[in-house]
């Protein structure tokens, strides 16, 4: 979920923004250092892709629908630091064009969806054994659940929601989303493997 402005208190805002900047600054450096000319339009189009994917409704078997985050997917395709920058820009665009999330809550939202999915998620992807599907599904599920937990903690510390109900409610909601995220991530990667296997071997930064 995208936290809007006004839901977090000053302390939480400062703390989450600090952590996010701490991850974002080295990511920008790493990407800049290996930025080939060809990579610039690719990053832009991939960001447009992630943003569009976040706007599509994915049905939940049994009813209702959810939206993807795509952070784990794009990190597996293009690398964790590129993934983090793409997720960051997608979240900025969400806030500006659709008011999903706010300006001062960007730090928290990037932390919840980007830093978890791209950095932690990609790290998990790298160390997991097994085939591509398994290694993609597990981080996609866990990181989405984690983003719900982070969100509940941030709102809890801000005094906006009580831990007692907020934490379980958001964890359950995030688990449902996470299952869909995992299924979608695996299906997308397997489609790419069948149709354009070369796209699974792009340079990862």
């Amino acid at each position: 979920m995208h936290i809007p402005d006004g839901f977090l208190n000053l302390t939480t805002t400062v703390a989450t923004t600090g952590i996010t900047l701490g991850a974002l600054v080295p990511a920008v450096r790493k990407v800049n250092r290996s930025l080939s000319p060809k990579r610039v339009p690719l990053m832009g189009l991939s960001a447009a892709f992630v943003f569009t994917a976040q706007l599509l409704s994915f049905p939940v078997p049994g009813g209702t629908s959810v939206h993807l985050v795509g952070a784990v997917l794009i990190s597996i395709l293009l690398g964790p630091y590129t993934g983090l920058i793409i997720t960051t820009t997608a979240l900025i665009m969400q806030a500006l064009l659709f008011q999903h999330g706010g300006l001062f809550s960007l730090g928290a939202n990037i932390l919840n969806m980007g830093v978890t999915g791209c950095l932690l998620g990609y790290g998990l992807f790298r160390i997991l054994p097994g085939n591509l599907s398994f290694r993609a599904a597990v981080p996609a599920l866990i990181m989405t659940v984690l983003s719900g937990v982070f969100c509940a903690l941030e709102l809890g510390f801000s005094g906006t929601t009580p831990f007692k109900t907020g934490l379980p409610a958001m964890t359950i909601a995030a688990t449902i989303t996470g299952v869909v995220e995992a299924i979608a991530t695996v299906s997308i990667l397997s489609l790419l493997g069948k149709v354009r296997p070369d796209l699974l071997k792009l340079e990862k930064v």
Partner: protein
Amino acid sequence: MKAVEVSRLNYTYPSGRVVLSDISFSLEENRTLGLIGPNGAGKTTLLLSLCGLMEFTGTVSVFGEPMTLKNARQVRARIGFVFQNPDDQLFMPTVREDIAFGLKELGCTAEEVTTRVRQSLSAVGLEGFEDRSAHHCSFGEKRKITLAAALARRSDLLIFDEPTRELDPGGRREFMGMMREIKATKIIATHDLDLVLELCTDVLVINGGQIIARGGPKDLLSNRDLMISNRLEVPYRLRDT
């Protein structure tokens, strides 16, 4: 019975721009209607509305069945749609899956699906393409696969949106031959006025979301003023030089 009956159809974009206003027409069974007009006239929106894919106001009936939110699915079961860009409708990993897509829901058994896939591929001259991936086919092949997919549904109404657009002249000629062979009611939106002249029995000129003229292809396409004022032109073979 009328194949298509449209009455007072209106559609407005979420932005407030009026795309179709007060469209009424009908089409007899087994006729071929050419839909012509400039870019942005509303042709594609009209085609999509006929399938209940746009939230229009007014009434649309297909083979006597009024299109409502509730029965849109049943009505669509009788329609085959060949979209402008083959890539928009061929997204499965193999050609077989692309053509078989949705057939089970039409009530086909697994066996019948296989038969229909084979038959429709052979009807478009692509025998043995089942296991290929459409992503790796040439443009002309993709175009034919979309036709095969529509044929496999044995639809009574076939809708084509710019079917000959990116084809080379030879491929276009071939595809027009295949379209001519199909026994069904057809609606074709196109800028290809020669195609209209060769395949259509009826023509509708639309511009700015309104019907400007309706008539036989020769009458309308040879009307220089009508063509020019709607950003069209008289095909060479109708010009007296």
